[in-house]
């Protein structure tokens, strides 16, 4: 059967499963809509969190990024996993004990301030919309590449599917479809990786094959270091970013991960504090399966690619090169006219420019795997994009119906009214997200740094200090959040939008790139919060009791009643 037939079958089947689950688990109350009724098993929640967290970028782009960055790619690997340790130890159990529905709920209540709540709502909306635009685009791209429909039609199909299960099912529907989506995406990622590891190193476990020898007896990584050096790239295992930048990007991504509202809210869905802790462990275990495989895939793919193109005559290139250059994802030009591909670090002389995404998308073809494996990768990419999009939609709809409508504008709204508002908000958000996917603003890639930097420099310190420092008060937290956002936002806007030409290491503060500046923003936030809190009156007694209460697990079930 052809790749396209297989793709129709596998993608169609997986979509049917998602819709089926959505109908079976639709939400009947606001509690089910926002937090799935609070009764999700910790392992299921861990899987759902993993699918929620791993986006189209993790699935499609990350391994490719690493294969071009080598050692430096570790900023993503450590940054996007280490945050779960912070989440499990410093945030999840306490937020679960606190027991409300959203992150702005916590900020508004802990800092007894409507202003703090509104600042948090704006940050949550901004971060979520930034993120979701990329997901819908990812859906469109996978559709257009594997099913040969126009990108926009792909986005529309994706919108329709997400609409059904996010609007109908709320958090409850999303949670159980995400469990299914995790299974699809991890299977789709591991199968080609195992095949390729076996082919290249004889070891079926990619994490071990990564450190094994190739058929010629040299270690894979030594071979890759040698190839990189020959072509003028820096050594694969050493990287080229300055250490301080690697340090700061990793820290910003970790704190940003722990501060992302769509991740935090997942820990409101389990029954007990105990479950919130273990659920974070399960989530990281499920994420680690992909995150420890990705660097192996990166190294396999790079070795394969260099060996099959560097110095090869243009008319003798393998068929996958032609297939992908037709889609525009590989660009080739025989600059020196010698008839052979010259792939080198020097941009002037280089003749071969692959898009990073093909490292995952074309991997099965490069390794000559059967057609069903190629189709599986399409289904996996869609699962990754749809699951993240749905989680983000929920944050957007609850920020509007719960945080703005119920808590800020009309506290007397009925349960049914709020549920209807949540559904309408989710519906409007789907349409907006789809439009962002069809007419992508040119700066989607740039604003991702923004989303993490903002989460790291606003939510993360406000929540941590809210739990661990009883003395932190409204004045401290609000000024801290504003200082963190203004500094981080200003730095990123300056270097990404106002003066991108100046964005070189020599001009950066301490050599820290805009991707890593959230770390400094976070430190500034904490300094402001701690110092100003101590210069202003301590928080009211009931708030101090609240903090004492969330530190003790017992009684979480009661706290959740709204």
């Amino acid at each position, binding site marked *: 059967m052809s790749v396209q037939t297989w793709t129709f079958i596998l993608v169609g089947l997986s979509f049917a499963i998602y819709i089926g689950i959505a109908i079976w688990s639709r939400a009947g109350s606001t509690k089910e809509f926002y937090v799935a009724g609070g009764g999700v098993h910790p392992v299921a929640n861990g899987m759902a969190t993993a699918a929620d967290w791993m986006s189209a970028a993790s699935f499609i782009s990350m391994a490719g990024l690493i294969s071009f960055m080598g050692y430096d*790619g570790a900023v993503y*690997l*450590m940054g996007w*996993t*280490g945050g779960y340790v912070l989440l499990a*130890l410093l945030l999840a159990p306490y937020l679960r004990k606190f027991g409300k529905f959203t992150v702005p709920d916590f900020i508004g209540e802990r800092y007894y301030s409507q202003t703090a709540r509104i600042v948090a709502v704006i940050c949550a909306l901004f971060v979520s919309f930034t993120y979701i635009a990329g997901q819908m685009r990812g859906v469109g791209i996978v559709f257009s590449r594997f099913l040969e429909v126009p990108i926009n039609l792909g986005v529309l199909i994706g919108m329709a599917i997400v609409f059904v299960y996010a609007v109908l099912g709320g958090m409850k529907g999303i949670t159980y479809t995400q469990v299914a989506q995790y299974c699809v995406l991890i299977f789709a990622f591991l199968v080609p990786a195992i095949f390729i590891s076996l082919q290249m190193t004889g070891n079926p476990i990619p994490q071990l094959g990564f450190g094994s020898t190739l058929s010629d007896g040299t270690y894979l990584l030594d071979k890759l270091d040698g190839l990189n050096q020959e072509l003028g790239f820096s050594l694969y295992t050493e990287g080229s970013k300055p250490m301080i930048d690697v340090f700061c990007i*990793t820290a910003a991504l970790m704190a940003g991960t722990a501060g992302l509202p769509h991740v935090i809210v997942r820990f409101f869905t389990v029954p007990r504090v105990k479950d919130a802790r273990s659920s*974070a462990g399960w989530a990281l275990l499920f994420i680690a399966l992909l995150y*420890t495989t990705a660097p192996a895939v990166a190294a396999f793919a790079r070795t394969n690619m260099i060996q099959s193109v560097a110095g090869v005559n243009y008319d003798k290139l393998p068929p996958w090169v032609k297939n992908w250059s037709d889609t525009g994802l590989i660009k080739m030009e025989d600059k020196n006219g010698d008839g052979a591909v010259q792939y080198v670090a020097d941009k002037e002389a280089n003749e071969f420019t692959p898009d990073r995404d093909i490292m995952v998308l074309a991997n099965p073809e490069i390794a000559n795997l059967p057609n069903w494996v190629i189709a599986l990768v399409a289904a996996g990419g869609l699962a990754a994009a749809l699951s993240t999009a749905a989680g983000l939609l929920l944050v957007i709809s609850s920020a509007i119906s719960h945080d703005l409508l119920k808590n800020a504008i009309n506290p007397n709204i009925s349960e049914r009214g709020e549920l209807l508002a949540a559904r309408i908000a989710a519906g409007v958000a789907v349409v907006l997200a789809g439009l962002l996917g069809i007419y992508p603003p040119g700066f989607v890639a740039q604003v991702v740094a923004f989303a993490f930097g903002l989460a790291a420099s606003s939510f993360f310190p406000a929540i941590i200090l809210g739990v661990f420092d009883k003395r932190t008060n409204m004045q401290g937290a609000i000024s801290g959040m504003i200082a963190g956002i203004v500094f981080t936002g200003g730095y990123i806007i300056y270097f990404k939008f106002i003066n991108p030409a100046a964005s070189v290491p020599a001009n950066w503060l301490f050599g820290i790139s805009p991707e890593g500046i959230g770390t400094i923003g976070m430190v500034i936030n904490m300094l402001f919060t701690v110092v100003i809190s101590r210069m202003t009156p301590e928080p009211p007694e009931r708030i101090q009791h609240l903090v004492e209460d969330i530190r003790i697990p017992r009684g979480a079930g009661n706290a959740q009643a709204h």
Partner: protein
Amino acid sequence: MSKTNAQAYWKENLRYLLILLLIWFAVSYGAGILFADALNSVRIGGFKLGFWFAQQGSIYVFVVLIFVYVWLMNKLDEKYDVHEQ
């Protein structure tokens, strides 16, 4: 529960957090970044050690750390009788 009991529970919790976060920092920022170059002179199979910590080892340790934390806290909750029914 009494106030002193709650404070003792919180103090022990903070001690666990400090130790676990030190390990968290040591494997990622320490072994994977600050001392990666030095560790790269040690090899395990095909991996240079600093590179391995940065792209593999730190992630394994993260997973283990969370489950150790869960285990420690479940015991601590029982000890101070603050566990959930």
